[in-house]
């Protein structure tokens, strides 16, 4: 298949407009005949685009493309309303239409970190049909044709000057929104609303995996120069030279922290004392596990997404205790009501059968769990066996440690005795080699409390060697 050829055909179709079906077909055939390898799809192209759209896209983007399909209410950000003609991820000047290639890329790669799937399994021909069909949904796009941004010359990694890039980052005020270290916590990052009246969050630039438009310098360059229309992210095309923009793009890439996605948390056994602080040097030597969090929360049937999207977990232990270190990004430190908070969940002793997913717990399955709970309004963390997300009303065992907030990041350290008589029914870690754990995080700044929170799936805490060798593994959902 020849994508370029198809594209030419597409352009003709769009110019002809959806109303003039007959003229289009003629134009297509003419275009097709003029070339050695006519694309097979041309004759019924528009109809084809619509059919593919209805089959795969309408459930989210709506039958008429207004972003109101049956699944739309469950997505944050919401699916695009194509009829309004806004396109976020372009290679063209702010306000001008995306190129067909831009749309083709979005369809092919999807928008990671949003509900928009990738469609690389559709044939190229089908994807180009979709491009043509999407354009026909926003007639206003034809009035503001794509004005490509200057691409300059990519200096390549070898000639990227990160110091220069950092300076441009400061001069351009990126930190106002994205924060000094790119954690999405700038002074202007709160309360932003997008063009569709929905709350919008500034991108956390350290999470390359969540860049919707791609995490490579080339993608970042485009975002800076073109802006992200429909959102607060402006175009810098008039403010910055292509040379500086490339340096900035490389600098932004250097802010990305490659995630260590793992299903296990490998706790390391230390011979002597355990670290009591978040900054202890030993943490640099301990395997880190990054976990994406589920943020879908409904209140009164409406989606009210939780804001924390990932957490990093580390653990060390000795013959006496285990210390967990959790780190996550949060725009603001909230001591007030509701406060920022965290919970590390463990199954109770002798637990059998499936563990409830934290998202539905305790409503869906009111069985007790052990929660190691920390809340920014209280000094010190506590462990409780409880059937409520906040642990209210149950006996508590204090967990020594600390919580430190620094430029958009919380780091929490909690020490739990391997076994404790003070908390009847709590699991003894002296006997286990593998134990399911899960994490819940509350962002007070996003009005999160009780069941409104971000949660992880259950994953395995693995103790590198058991303290007393007698492996028992409580049951868990596979």
């Amino acid at each position: 298949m020849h994508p370029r050829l198809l594209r030419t055909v597409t352009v003709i179709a769009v110019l002809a407009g959806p109303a003039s079906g007959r003229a289009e077909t003629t134009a297509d055939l003419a275009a097709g005949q003029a070339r050695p390898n006519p694309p097979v799809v041309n004759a019924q192209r528009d109809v084809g685009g619509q059919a593919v759209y209805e089959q795969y896209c309408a459930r989210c983007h709506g039958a008429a493309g207004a972003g109101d399909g049956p699944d739309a209410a469950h997505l944050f950000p919401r699916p695009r309303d194509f009829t309004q003609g806004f396109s976020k991820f372009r290679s063209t000047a702010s306000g001008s239409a995306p190129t067909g290639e831009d749309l083709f890329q979005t369809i092919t790669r999807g928008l990671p970190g949003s509900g928009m799937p990738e469609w690389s399994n559709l044939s190229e021909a089908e994807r180009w049909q979709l491009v043509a069909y999407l354009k026909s949904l926003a007639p206003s796009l034809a009035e503001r044709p794509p004005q490509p941004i200057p691409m300059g010359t990519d200096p390549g990694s070898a000639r990227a000057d990160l110091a220069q890039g950092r300076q441009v980052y400061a001069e351009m005020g990126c930190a106002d929104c994205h924060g000094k270290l790119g954690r999405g916590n700038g002074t202007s990052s709160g309360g932003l609303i997008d063009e569709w009246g929905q709350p919008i969050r500034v991108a956390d630039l350290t999470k390359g995996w969540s860049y919707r438009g791609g995490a490579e310098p080339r993608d970042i360059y485009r975002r800076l120069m073109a802006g992200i229309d429909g959102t607060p992210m402006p175009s810098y095309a008039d403010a910055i030279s292509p040379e500086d923009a490339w340096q900035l793009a490389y600098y932004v890439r250097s802010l990305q922290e490659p995630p260590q996605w793992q299903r296990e948390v490998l706790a390391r056994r230390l011979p002597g004392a355990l670290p009591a602080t978040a900054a202890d040097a030993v943490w640099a030597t301990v395997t880190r596990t990054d976990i994406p969090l589920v943020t879908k929360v409904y209140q009164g049937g409406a989606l009210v997404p939780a804001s924390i999207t990932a957490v990093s977990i580390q653990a060390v232990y000795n013959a006496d205790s285990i210390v967990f270190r959790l780190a996550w990004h949060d725009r603001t430190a909230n001591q007030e009501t509701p406060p920022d908070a965290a919970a590390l969940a463990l199954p109770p002793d002798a637990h059998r059968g499936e563990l409830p997913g934290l998202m539905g717990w305790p409503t869906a399955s009111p069985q007790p769990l052990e929660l190691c709970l920390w809340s920014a309004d209280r000094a010190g963390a506590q462990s409780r066996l409880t059937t409520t997300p906040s642990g209210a009303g149950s006996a508590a065992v204090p967990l020594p440690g600390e919580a430190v907030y620094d430029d958009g990041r919380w780091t929490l350290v909690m020490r739990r005795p391997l076994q404790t008589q003070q908390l009847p029914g709590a699991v003894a870690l002296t006997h286990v080699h593998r134990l399911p754990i899960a994490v819940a995080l509350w962002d007070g700044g996003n009005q999160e409390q009780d069941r409104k929170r971000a949660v992880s799936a259950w994953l395995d805490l693995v103790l590198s060697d058991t303290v007393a060798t007698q492996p028992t593994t409580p049951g868990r959902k596979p």
Partner: protein
Amino acid sequence: MTARMSRVVLTAMVLLALGCGGAKSATATSSESPSEARLQLAEAPAGTAPAAAPGTATVTGYVGLQGTAPTGTKVKMEADPVCQQQHAGGLVDEAVLVRNGKLANVFVYVKEGLGGKSFPAPTTPATLDQRGCWYTPHVIGVQAGQPLELVNSDATLHNVNAKPTVNQPFNVAQPKQGMKTTKSFAKPEVMVKVKCNVHPWMHAYVGVVNHPFYAVTGEEGTFTLAGLPAGTYTIEAWHETLGTQTQSVTVGDGETKTVSFTFQSP
């Protein structure tokens, strides 16, 4: 002729000049200290020599407010020290700006009645300034196709996020003091809202019409649409929170008619 009258006439001449591309539109004056509370006032257009008029009829009047004006809200600027520094005494956002019952920042323009007549767009830009983390003027009129110069007079980042519905939207960053970006709106649209996302309190309105017969009321609440061809017109007065009102008026050559609007305090 009373003092007020002569002022109105002056404004009228300015408007004429504006319509024919000779004058610059409302700009911020340096005499207005940015720390002054009433920053939301649109400056009356200032200009030089009047040019040939397309007509000789004039519609003039004032916009009043009945009832007590709502008290303004204090703008919270802590997030950006560069902004706060410039408003030692604080800044009050007065959406409804009233003095002696007269309402400022009302966009008054000929909505209907010009038929198919066309008026070439001035090539001189209108200027929308960002000064003290506030748009000056707060309400501005331009002709479709006329250049609109966006200026950042502050040593901080602003972004100008224009959200038209019939025109091409844009969202441009102005990270440096003294930066200028020129944009224009191709089609009439009343109003285009412009805002800054770095400073959520910053917003302005641009009234885009395809003729030179528009004005923004100043502190005295007056407006003058001069140089009109004789005819019957629908005049609309637009206010950001109080809505719109229209009136019909017929003027002959050389004639001046008075049309006044009264908005109701919410």
